[in-house]
């Protein structure tokens, strides 16, 4: 059977549909205690005094820790994993991010004390009785305002709140000169608003110190168990890495927010040794809102210049990127190497310059959220393209086709060298747009649009074509760009004597279906039934090492590591088979689970070879027993999926309500292992991308309060806000990894957002507006239509 390419139903489903999924908060350990954090209600406030005397005496309270305790223990705080230097070469400003703050709170939600009790209710009761005296300071939440002279200073030693500034591409003077001399320049000033990841499972962590073995176990809702262990051991707590086991059990969605090492993880581990009992902390939703790293939050001015024929001549962009109060694990990479490097898009733009100021504010940290920098780049480019088309009286689809990079497969033709550091691996851009136009029925739509005018409805169509960088990432390349870690992946393929196979992967599945798609790869490559393969992940004591799951890297990098190990298994298996068959290795073929002597009927089955490997009585001389290999795979390049998203909106003129009527997505994610799973990934990404366009967005008031920090207030797409999606794909294989795959996890979220806003702008083109700020709510639209 060929598993690769078929929509095999997921093997992990059974436990979830029967209520047997095991998420961190479901785990109960003997003698377990419960933690509740005391958090600052103020966005910016000196901590004058913390009084725990009354709270400590309350029923069930086991222990209360404050910042004084973590300071006394010499714990410095959680580190940042990516260093970006200033334009002048100075190292970025990296103020400490304490587990519990003792001097001042820098965002609403900063933790001041951890109250531990016999039950969560008791911990929460006591937390309310911890008396904190504050000296409230003025706060700043907007990155552009924070950068100005006289703005509140988030960290005393970071002047003008500038974490770092950064620039990439062609010299600014050259770009500016090209823009100044151009036939047409389209300029947009816009906000790519802060969104909250909102995995439906709130973050949770259990710390357990086992006094019998002097060993810690951390259960945590993470996408990234091994990296959490490394960061926590080496940089936060100074405990030996081999004495810590980190388990990321079933995880209820991540979308980026569970990549990072959070303070609560280190707190429950450290605390569990202090009290010699396990500690569980689980966020309430309002806590998730103010402590989970958020996404986007860019303020950008961008210019795109054209000649008289509509060819793009140059692009410049200047962005204020909000970092929040502290640098989260990968935060510096997001507005820089995951954003600026994508501003070539799918276009031949010969001159590009991108400049970014990364700014501290009194808000929750910002880091990677599904797409991480690439949605911001795509929004910038694709809003410019549709706006330019409108301004120049050009068709937006034709304008794109005219400027697309010519096809290149990375084999016969070289990869495409961009102006912004990257070399695309393979791409063929026109077919995705043409297929999208076919699916939408473009000509018919324009006729319908005209006809709708008499009905009180406005129809609009919006385009978005994107290219993104996935399969993160070649270690040496990212190392040169400031990553403080390698971004390879590891995998162990362990063949048991009976021929059954356990695969230990450093990737982490939290909805992506690795237990199925990885098993498809293994079963196909080894010629054995899928039922004989189990994928194990998420436990640092089971899996030797791993770099986790984010950046659409699991199959491209993690899957490639598995393939490498399979190759080693089959190579050694062939030696054993050759011995059993009394033939030469060179004369053997391997197919359908057996080695056959070419041109004969003589064969030996995989299970006989595996048994021989572990019962090596009749065995090749000098060959080690066993059939068990590990591999590390470090990719040669990023992978570059691309696609075309087209949105049709209908606006009710009377109410301003925007309805997404149709959404068409044609994505090219390279080869596809499981079409059903890839489609599902696209669907989910689209919903999040569409959500940012029309309903989502964090709102802070002047004092720094997140005023929509609950599910009653923060609007996310519900089932009746979305249409069924119309999706298709083309296949341009990745030329540099063994599976030819590129990654599908983020594509939907990267392409969708500008398509929606472009569609709204197309619908409203009769109203003389240039831009509309996200989220495009009915109130904003009503104001445009009715001049409110």
């Amino acid at each position, binding site marked *: 059977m060929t598993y690769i390419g078929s929509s095999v139903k997921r093997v992990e489903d059974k436990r979830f*549909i029967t209520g047997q999924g095991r998420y961190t908060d479901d785990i109960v350990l003997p003698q377990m205690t419960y933690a509740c954090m005391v958090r600052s209600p103020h966005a910016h406030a000196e901590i004058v005094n913390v009084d725990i005397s009354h709270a400590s005496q309350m029923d069930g309270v086991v222990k209360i820790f404050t910042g004084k305790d973590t300071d006394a223990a010499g714990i410095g705080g959680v580190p940042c994993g990516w260093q970006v230097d200033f334009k002048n070469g100075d190292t970025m400003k990296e103020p400490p991010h304490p587990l519990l703050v003792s001097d001042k709170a820098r965002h609403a939600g900063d933790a001041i004390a951890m109250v531990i009790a016999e039950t969560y209710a008791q911990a929460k009761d006591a937390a309310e009785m911890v008396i904190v005296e504050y000296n409230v300071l003025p706060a700043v939440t907007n990155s552009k305002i924070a950068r100005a002279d006289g703005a509140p200073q988030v960290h005393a030693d970071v002047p003008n709140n500038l974490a770092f500034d950064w620039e990439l591409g062609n010299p600014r003077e050259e770009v500016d000169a090209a823009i100044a001399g151009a036939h047409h320049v389209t300029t947009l000033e816009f906000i790519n608003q802060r969104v909250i990841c909102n995995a439906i499972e*709130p973050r949770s962590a259990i710390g357990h110190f086992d006094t019998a073995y002097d060993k810690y176990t951390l259960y945590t809702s993470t996408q990234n168990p091994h990296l959490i262990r490394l960061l926590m051991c080496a940089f936060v707590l100074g405990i030996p890495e081999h004495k810590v086991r980190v388990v990321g059990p079933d995880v209820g969605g991540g979308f980026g927010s569970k990549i990072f090492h959070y303070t609560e993880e280190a707190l429950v581990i450290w605390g569990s040794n202090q009290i010699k009992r396990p500690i569980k902390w689980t966020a309430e939703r309002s806590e998730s809102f103010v402590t989970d790293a958020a996404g986007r939050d860019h303020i950008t001015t961008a210019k795109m210049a054209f000649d008289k024929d509509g060819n793009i001549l140059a692009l410049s962009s200047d962005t204020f990127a909000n970092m929040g109060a502290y640098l989260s694990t990968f935060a510096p990479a997001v507005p820089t190497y995951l954003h600026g490097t994508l501003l070539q898009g799918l276009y031949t733009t010969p001159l590009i310059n991108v400049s970014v100021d990364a700014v501290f504010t009194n808000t929750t940290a910002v880091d990677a959220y599904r797409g991480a920098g690439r949605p911001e780049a795509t929004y910038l480019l694709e809003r410019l393209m549709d706006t330019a088309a409108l301004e120049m009286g050009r068709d937006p689809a034709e304008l794109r086709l005219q400027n697309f990079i010519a096809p290149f497969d990375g084999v016969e033709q070289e990869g495409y060298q961009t102006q912004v550091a990257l070399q695309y691996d393979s791409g063929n851009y026109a077919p995705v747009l043409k297929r999208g136009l076919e699916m939408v029925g473009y000509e018919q739509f324009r006729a319908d649009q005209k006809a709708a005018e008499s009905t009180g409805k406005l129809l609009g169509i919006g385009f978005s074509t994107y290219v993104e960088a996935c399969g993160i990432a070649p270690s040496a390349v990212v190392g040169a760009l400031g990553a403080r870690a390698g971004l390879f992946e590891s995998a162990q393929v362990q063949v048991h004597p009976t021929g059954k196979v356990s695969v230990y992967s450093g990737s982490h599945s939290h909805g992506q279906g690795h237990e199925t798609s990885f098993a498809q790869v293994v079963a196909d490559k080894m010629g054995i039934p899928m039922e004989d393969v189990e994928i194990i992940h998420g436990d640092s004591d089971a899996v030797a090492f791993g770099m986790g799951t984010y950046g659409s890297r699991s199959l491209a990098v993690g899957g490639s590591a598995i393939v490498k190990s399979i190759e080693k298994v089959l190579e050694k298996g062939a030696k054993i088979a050759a011995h059993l068959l009394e033939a030469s290795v060179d004369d053997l073929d391997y197919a359908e689970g057996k080695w056959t002597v070419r041109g004969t009927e003589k064969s030996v089955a995989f299970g006989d070879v595996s048994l021989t490997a572990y019962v090596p009585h009749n065995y090749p001389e000098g060959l080690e027993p066993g059939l068990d290999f590990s591999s590390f795979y470090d990719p040669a390049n990023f992978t570059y999926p691309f696609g075309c998203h087209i949105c049709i909106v209908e606006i009710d003129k009377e109410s301003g309500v925007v309805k997404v009527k149709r959404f068409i997505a044609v994505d090219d994610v390279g080869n596809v292992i499981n079409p*059903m799973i890839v489609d599902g990934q696209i669907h989910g990404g689209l919903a999040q991308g569409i959500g940012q366009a029309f309903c989502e967005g964090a709102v802070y008031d002047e004092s720094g309060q997140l005023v929509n920090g609950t599910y009653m207030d923060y609007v996310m797409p519900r089932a009746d806000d979305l249409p069924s999606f119309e999706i298709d794909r083309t296949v341009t294989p990745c030329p540099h990894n063994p599976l030819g795959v590129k990654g599908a996890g983020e594509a939907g979220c990267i392409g969708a957002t500008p398509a929606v806003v472009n569609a709204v702008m197309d619908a409203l083109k009769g109203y003389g507006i240039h831009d509309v700020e996200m989220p495009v709510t009915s109130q904003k639209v009503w104001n445009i239509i009715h001049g409110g």
Partner: protein
Amino acid sequence: MKVPVSITVNGKQYDKMVEPRLLLVYFLREELALTGTHIGCDTSSCGACTIHLDGKALKSCTMLAVQANGKSVTTIEGMANGEELHPLQEGFHMEHGLQCGFCTPGMIMCAADMLKNNPNPSEEEIRHGLEGNFCRCTGYHNIVKSIQYAAKKMA
């Protein structure tokens, strides 16, 4: 200060002493270790905690355990008949209606009530019926198909 409750869950009667402030969802998760019912929001907005109370779908973070005294609760753990999956469970599997699985129990419990009242819903009715349940993974596309699969099977 604990008070006695007697609640039948998935056909089995449980007599427990609980704090009057204990929410039904914590009773299920912590007293009975039925952790298939999840907590996603604390404000009755996400639907991850949806169960059936006397046959009607209800968010179990919205009521106290003591309010369920004498009543009958069905959770996701009570939906399959031994090894035989409920048509909705089968539908979610067959149509890839779940990814991370966290919202899935609530989705299935909500959909079961929906199909009881409307055995042959249109796509629009399904989407409207799911309005109280968040999913952040699937974009709802395959959840709609999963419920259509079950409706067909149950017809």
